[in-house]
């Protein structure tokens, strides 16, 4: 993307005022999308972003500047701005010699989306629209969206690192509106992978569309959700966001360092039920949060965060591990070249247990079965979190019975983790997600087997 000598000189310029560390992050991102709504292919969009972010670290202060101008002059000017922001005191010249490193990609990409005709992408939308509407006359509205992105990055730093990655992601989303006696209800289904257009050789967009349509139709007959605390069984693949919110964010080292995590100081301690083994894995082939290197140039890793209920490690960014003199974890990510990296999750999942899913449901007398969770939010300092149920049913006398309307579940992370009393043997990964933190969104994946929490507060209106 850039000449090595230019990067070396830029890093030299960044360190001219005495920085301890400098880094150049270059990104070239192309994206395309197409949307069908209200029965009509209404829009195709193409985007191109290209630029560099430069950071300079002096002591505990980080200076950052970015530029869309990738000429040597543009880079030098950004380097000077970052250095001035970090206020390096001393002068001097430091030479930086880069060593090119390579990290294995989690998987190959067979068909680059940019090589596929726009007409072929549009056709997927029309097939999805037709399939969703064929599910029943109650389907009043369908929106289908295709999206792809190719993000090529280069990271170089004053430790001599030079590395790159080529990240291709493909996404298909269908949302529906069903209309009945009780008003309107919505359904949503999405599929995304860190691969190219071969995604559509493996899955039929009709299946995604039908699933979105059925979700909306099912909810037309849904009863109001109960209120108060009840046992909650979460279905396979549908509830990874529970761990993302209940403890994932709280295990990010930047929050831990500031005392803003209930998991601070708890390494080596039992923080969850012995049934819980939680992993964050950026190497997981094709998953939405997968990559070869993170946005600081560290190769992705599989990190065990909780083993049999015992907290084994936090997630780290490069600078924090460098300062602590410990191994990197590959969790330093940023939304774009315009952002500083932070500690972020990749693909976060709970390992399968031994119970059969059927026995988990049948041993629950009265409760809620959540087939699919929506987004969530957590306060890492208190551990209190919420997340939405987008497809849920009552469990009565050990059987899944009627659908219930949407609502939030609310709980406390450490409490919920320690109370989990059943984990199934049927693991599945969930839908592609975008995790937001401090104004930056990054793609993440999650997964769970069937599991049960003995008491979660259901945010419904029924007694």
């Amino acid at each position, binding site marked *: 993307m850039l000449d090595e000598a230019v990067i070396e000189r830029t890093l030299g310029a960044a360190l001219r005022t005495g920085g301890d560390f400098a880094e150049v992050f270059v990104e070239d991102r192309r994206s395309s999308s197409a949307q069908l709504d209200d029965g009509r292919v209404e829009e195709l969009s193409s985007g191109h972003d290209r630029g560099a972010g430069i950071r300079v670290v002096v002591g*505990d202060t980080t200076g950052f500047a970015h530029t869309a101008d990738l000429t040597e002059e543009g880079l030098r000017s950004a380097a000077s701005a970052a250095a001035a922001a970090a206020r390096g005191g001393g002068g001097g010249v430091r030479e930086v010699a880069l060593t090119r490193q390579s990290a294995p990609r989690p998987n190959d990409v067979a068909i680059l989306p940019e090589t596929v005709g726009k007409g072929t992408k549009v056709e997927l939308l029309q097939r999805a629209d037709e399939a969703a509407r064929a599910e029943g006359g109650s389907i009043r509205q369908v929106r289908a969206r295709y999206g792809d992105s190719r993000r090529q990055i280069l990271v170089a730093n004053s430790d001599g690192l030079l590395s790159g990655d080529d990240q291709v992601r493909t996404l298909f989303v269908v949302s529906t509106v069903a209309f009945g006696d009780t008003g309107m209800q919505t359904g949503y289904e999405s599929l995304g992978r860190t691969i190219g257009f071969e995604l559509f050789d493996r899955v039929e967009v009709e299946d995604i569309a039908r699933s979105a349509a059925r979700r909306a139709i099912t909810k037309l007959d849904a009863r109001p959700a109960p209120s108060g605390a009840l046992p909650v069984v979460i279905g396979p693949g549908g509830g990874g966001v529970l761990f993302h919110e209940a403890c994932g964010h709280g295990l990010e080292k930047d929050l831990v360092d500031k*005392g803003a995590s209930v998991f601070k100081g708890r390494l080596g301690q039992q923080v969850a039920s012995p049934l819980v083994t939680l992993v964050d894995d950026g190497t997981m082939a094709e998953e939405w949060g997968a990559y070869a290197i993170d946005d600081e140039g560290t190769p992705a890793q599989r990190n065990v965060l909780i083993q049999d209920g015992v907290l084994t490690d936090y997630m780290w960014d490069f600078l924090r591990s460098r300062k602590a003199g410990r191994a990197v974890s590959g969790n330093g990510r940023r939304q774009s070249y315009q952002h500083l990296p932070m500690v972020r999750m990749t693909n976060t999942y709970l390992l399968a247990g031994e119970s059969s899913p059927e026995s988990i449901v049948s041993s629950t007398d009265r409760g809620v079965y959540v087939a699919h969770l929506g987004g969530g939010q957590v306060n890492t300092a208190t551990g209190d979190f919420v997340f939405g149920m987008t497809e849920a049913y009552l469990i009565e006398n050990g059987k899944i019975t009627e659908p219930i309307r949407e609502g*939030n579940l609310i709980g406390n992370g450490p409490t919920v983790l320690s109370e989990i009393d059943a984990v199934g043997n049927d693991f599945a990964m969930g839908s592609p997600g975008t995790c937001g933190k401090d104004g930056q969104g990054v793609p993440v994946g999650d997964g769970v087997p069937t599991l049960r929490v003995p008491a979660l507060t259901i945010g419904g209106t029924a007694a």
Partner: protein
Amino acid sequence: MPDLYEVADLVLAGASSGEEVEAYVSHSRETQVRVYEGSVEQLSVAEGLGVGVRVVRDGRQGFAYCGTFDPASVRAAVAEARDNAAFAEPDEWIGLAAPDGISPVSLDLWREDLLSVPTDRKVGLAVELEAAVRSADPRITGIESCDYADSAGETVVASTTGLRRSARSTGCELVAYSLADDGDAAQTGFGFSVGRTVDELDVATAARDAADRATRMLGATKPPSERLTVVLDPWVSAQLMGIVASTLSGEEVVKGRSLFADRVGEQVAASSLTLVEDPTDVRSWGATPIDDEGLAARRVPLISDGVLDGFVQSTWTGRRMGTASTGSAVRGGFKTTPTAGCRAAALVPGSSSPAELLAGISDGVLVQEVSGLHSGVNPVSGDLSTGAEGLRIRNGSLAEPLREFTLGSTLQRLLQDIVAIGNDLTWLPMTAAGVTLVIADVSISGQ
């Protein structure tokens, strides 16, 4: 600052005969400072810029953008937008905005002096805020983040259909997230101050809010599940009214996704409720003289005395509904096409102060924070379920703190159940203003 009209002209020069072309060009300069324990942790200086291009031909619309003003890239975006148009399906209502005879009002949203504030002063404000929060109360044990941020941005919209307008504004903010601990459990709070330039920032208020919000929650417990009167403070009601306003978008109406679609002229809310969208109100942080298609922004009545007046419209939704644009096109920056939406909705305040309203409530909950609104409110069905925190109200006085409970209702019901509106209209950096709302008979779910 680069000349944005020059970039727009480059786009329009690429128009072929028989097509409409629009350039949406934006540029901003931003500073962000994060301090920790009295020192700078991060300081970013940034220049954000880009161009979004719409091409309409044969009733089809295509879009492309680029995050640079490099002429070759801009010309490539025009070509790409034209190519994209060929793959869309035709629509008789599609087309760019054209002058509609309404001139934009002049709004004072730019403070030249913000551009010359030295970085030291910005850092100093953040350091001052952090120290003030830490010293406000002995139970404050930490600061999760303490930031200063500012932005000076300009936007130009120009089209071959005759629009050529710009808007610019400055803004800055101080925000602190605090941690409090009473030895038993931690609680968090936040405080902020927003201004068009640094002289308008109020460190003391931001610090007091950050300390109060965290410490008042210490010892909070989970309430039982019941139905009772709920009071929403302005911070919470602004978020809720933002969602209500989003359902009044012509885009949602024409696509059959608004629960208010067929209800114009009907009583959709308590008769005390009047909601107006007005981006020309300079007090609003969403204020702008022009919308994101270049038409003059204007006042749009949405609900009057509880009766639904109508919807906000963009050019496309206005044509499709047989009306006209209300100057309410909004975009998420240069990377997206316009839709119809609110940016400055506000309720007409009532006459009672929050204290007077509380005094009349024998048993209720004052809600001061909500979480999971994005997952818990479905703007199509109206189902509403949100995590909440706040204080118990007993016999007209504030009592113990409550946490880890939810509010449950529907948007339709909640609007009808509003029994009082406070006099404390508060302009917040959101799409709607806040005001104290008293709502009867809301389900709360806890133990």
